[in-house]
Structures are given as structure tokens and as C-alpha cells.
């Protein structure tokens, strides 16, 4: 991997990390978007889309409501897609699981830790904030943004390293390596389906879910 490519991936990983909660929350952090662009950067869009589609199934389970904790799949998807794009022998689906899922969990932890640090910086400026000092509020916003960018950069570095380490083991020379694909896909489909059932509850939404599933099955079963 050239230095230029590594830098481009790190910049993209940082952008999608910041997009998730800080700014602009513009859907760039969705794994499908993050991984597709990362695949394009690394020279294989197809591998990126595959990684993104699989991780997107997992992301559909997440409800980022209230102050709940959830994984951050953005930089994870970037690293998994880059790994898949740069190693033609690797299965993008298996890499989505082996790199994307654990790094997504790590991403969730870093988000939580960052919120703690932001809380401490607010605590320090409490007197100025309570006095209505607009400059203090602006500084806290900027500090939060920079903290999130640093988090995204570090997370992207670690995730790309993990993707590189995973690539050192010759998983995909074993004919049973396809089991990895099945495991990752089954988890993803369960996440999307279980998540949709939970979110739909009863009534009209549940009926629309069934109609959608039936339509999808018809579409794929069509000869």
C-alpha cells in the first residue's frame, strides 16, 4: 500500500467517523457508503460494495435513539473494504465480519470514551457556560469536533492495521473458508430481519415488512 493510498484511506475513515454523530450526520457513516467509497479509493469498488452491503445489514439493527450505545461501523467498513480491495484472494464477506464487526464494536467504545472526555471539558468550563459566555460554548463545540476527528483517525489506523494482520493469515486457501461467508451473512440477515421485526412491532408496519420480504423472495426466485 502506498503512502498516498494509506493517507487517503485515513482521511476518508476520519470523515466518516466524524459524520456519525458530530458533523454533518449526512449518512456518510453508513457502512454501505463508507465501504463503497473506500473500495473505490483502494481500486476495487466491487469489493467495497460487497463489504458495505454485508455490514449495512448489521447496521439496520441499530436504533441510535436516546443516549443508547451502539457500534460505529464507519471506519470499520473503510478498513474492511480496503483490505478486501487490496487482497484479491480474500473474501470481502468474510473480511466484513472479521475486520468490520470487531472494529465496529471498538468504534462504539471509543465513542463512549470520547463522550466522557467531552463531559470533563464541559465540567471545566461550567462557570463560563452557566454565565452565558458564547465564546466558551463555541470552544467546547470546536474541542468536541477535534476530539472526534482524533478518535476517527486513531480508529482508522487501528482498523487498517487489523485488516493488514488478518490478511497475513492464509484463511482463504482452505476450501471450507466459505463457512466464514455463511456465518457473517447469516448474522447480518438475522440482524436486519430481527431488527426490522423489533422496530416494526405489530400492525401496518409488520404487514409492510411481510409484503417486502415476499416481494424480495419472488424477485430472487424468478427464473
Amino acid at each position, binding site marked *: 500500500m502506498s503512502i498516498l493510498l494509506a493517507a487517503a484511506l485515513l482521511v476518508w475513515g476520519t470523515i466518516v467517523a466524524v459524520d456519525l454523530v458530530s458533523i454533518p450526520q449526512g449518512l456518510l457513516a453508513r457502512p*454501505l457508503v463508507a465501504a463503497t467509497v473506500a473500495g473505490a479509493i483502494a481500486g476495487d469498488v466491487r469489493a467495497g460494495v460487497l463489504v458495505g452491503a454485508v455490514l449495512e445489514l448489521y447496521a439496520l439493527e441499530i436504533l441510535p435513539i436516546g443516549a443508547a450505545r451502539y457500534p460505529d461501523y464507519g471506519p470499520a467498513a473503510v478498513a474492511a473494504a480496503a483490505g478486501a480491495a487490496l487482497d484479491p484472494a480474500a473474501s470481502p464477506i468474510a473480511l466484513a465480519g472479521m475486520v468490520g464487526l470487531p472494529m465496529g464494536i471498538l468504534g462504539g467504545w471509543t465513542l463512549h470514551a470520547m463522550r466522557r472526555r467531552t463531559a470533563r471539558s464541559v465540567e471545566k468550563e461550567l462557570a463560563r457556560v452557566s454565565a452565558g459566555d458564547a465564546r466558551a460554548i463555541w470552544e467546547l463545540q470546536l474541542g468536541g469536533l477535534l476530539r472526534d476527528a482524533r478518535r476517527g483517525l486513531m480508529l482508522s489506523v487501528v482498523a487498517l492495521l487489523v485488516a493488514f494482520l488478518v490478511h497475513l493469515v492464509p484463511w482463504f486457501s482452505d476450501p471450507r473458508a466459505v463457512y466464514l461467508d455463511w456465518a457473517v451473512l447469516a448474522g*447480518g440477515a438475522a440482524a436486519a430481519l430481527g431488527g426490522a421485526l423489533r422496530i416494526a412491532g405489530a400492525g401496518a408496519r409488520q404487514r409492510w415488512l411481510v409484503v417486502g420480504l*415476499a416481494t424480495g423472495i419472488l424477485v430472487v426466485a424468478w427464473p
Partner: protein
Amino acid sequence: MAMTPRWQTMIRLLGVQAAWTYERMSGIGVGHAAAPLLRDLYRDATPEARRGAVARSAEYFNCHPYLAGVAVGAVVRAEQDRVPGPTITRLRTALSGPLGSLGDQLVWTGEVPALMGLTLAALPLAGWWAVLIAPVVHNLLRLRLTLWGLDLGLREGLAVGAALQRSWLPPAAVQLQQLAAFAVGLAIPVVLMWVLRDGPTRGVTVTVALSVIGALLMMAPATRTRVTGLRLGLGLLVLALLVIGGS
């Protein structure tokens, strides 16, 4: 060229969660977003009056980020109408939960899964460029919603709850969630078959069976608090690695 306070607030609303904490949630971000409008409103008043309004606007606040503009607008309008400080604090508190709930339904369980589900389902036909359409559509809708919300709040002040109830948002939330349910349902079999199309048929059988069992475990009362798709996927992955490495 100077930007109007309304547009400064609008741009700041895009980063309303940058200083999010468990104690104040989006309070700091909402205070930051309200500041240009408050500065404009209080430009002839005493610094104490302005600072009081800024401090109130940065207190604990929690709602959906895309609808924070409704609260910012309503609070600025209430300040303009000289509504007493404690009532404004009460308005902020009362807006939190409902705006969060409405935004969650409209965006997190509505528009976003609808858009992502449709994009996933379009992949086999349209190819990768379908992926680029999703963020463009989303951001156009989102900017429109943020600006609409800010203007609604600025126009209605304390009456913003009733205005929201009459608005297009509640019915749109209902319809978008139905669309989301349909789109995600459609996407699951389409993506599975698209990804597995070149592999052995056995793969389809195994994957579908495991995912249905997984989804049932996610729903069953005895297991639903412990089983998530993520845990299931990681568990199955470890199992597959053991099978491959164990012989």
C-alpha cells in the same frame, strides 16, 4: 458578504451533537446554534440579558439532531416574546422527548432504513453507483427539514407543539416507517442471493436457516435481551473459524 443570523444558526445546527455528553446531551450544541439569533435579538439589550438567554439555551437538552432547529427556533421566539425564563426552561424540557420521539420515527426508523433498504435492493440491478444516490437524497431532505423546523419554531414559539401536530411530519413519519419496513424486507432476500449467487446452493440453505433462527432468538421473550445480530454474527464467525482451524 455577511451571513444572516438565521443561516448562521442553520449551519451550526448541522453540528448540534459535536459536544454531546451524557449529562447535557445536545445542550452545548443547541446553545451554540441559538447564539447567532440570540445575539441579534439582544443586540440593544444589556449584556446580562443576552448572557442569561445564552446560558438557558445551553442547558440540558436532548432531541433528534435534525429537529433541534424546532426547539432553537421556538426558544428564540419565546425569548423575543419576553416569555419568563422559567417558562422557557419548561418549554425546552417539554420539547425534548416529543421532538426526539418524532425524529426517531421520521428519520432513524423511517427515512434512513427506507433509503438504505431501497439502495441495497437496487444493487443487483443498478450497481455500485446506486450507493452514491442515497447520501445525496438524504442530505437534500435533511437540509430542507432542518430549515423548515427552524422557521416553524421561529414562527410559533410556545405554540410550536400544536403547529407540529397539524404539520406534515406525523403522517410522514407513519408513511416513511411503512416504506422502511417494506424496503428492509425487500432488501434482505435480494442482498443474500446477490452475495451468494456464485457459491454452492448449500450456502443459501445454511445461511437462510441460521438467519431465521437468529431472528427468532432476537424476538423470543427469553432471549431477546441477550441476542443481537451482531453477537450472533460474531458467535457464528468464531464457530466457523474453529471448524476450519480445528482439523
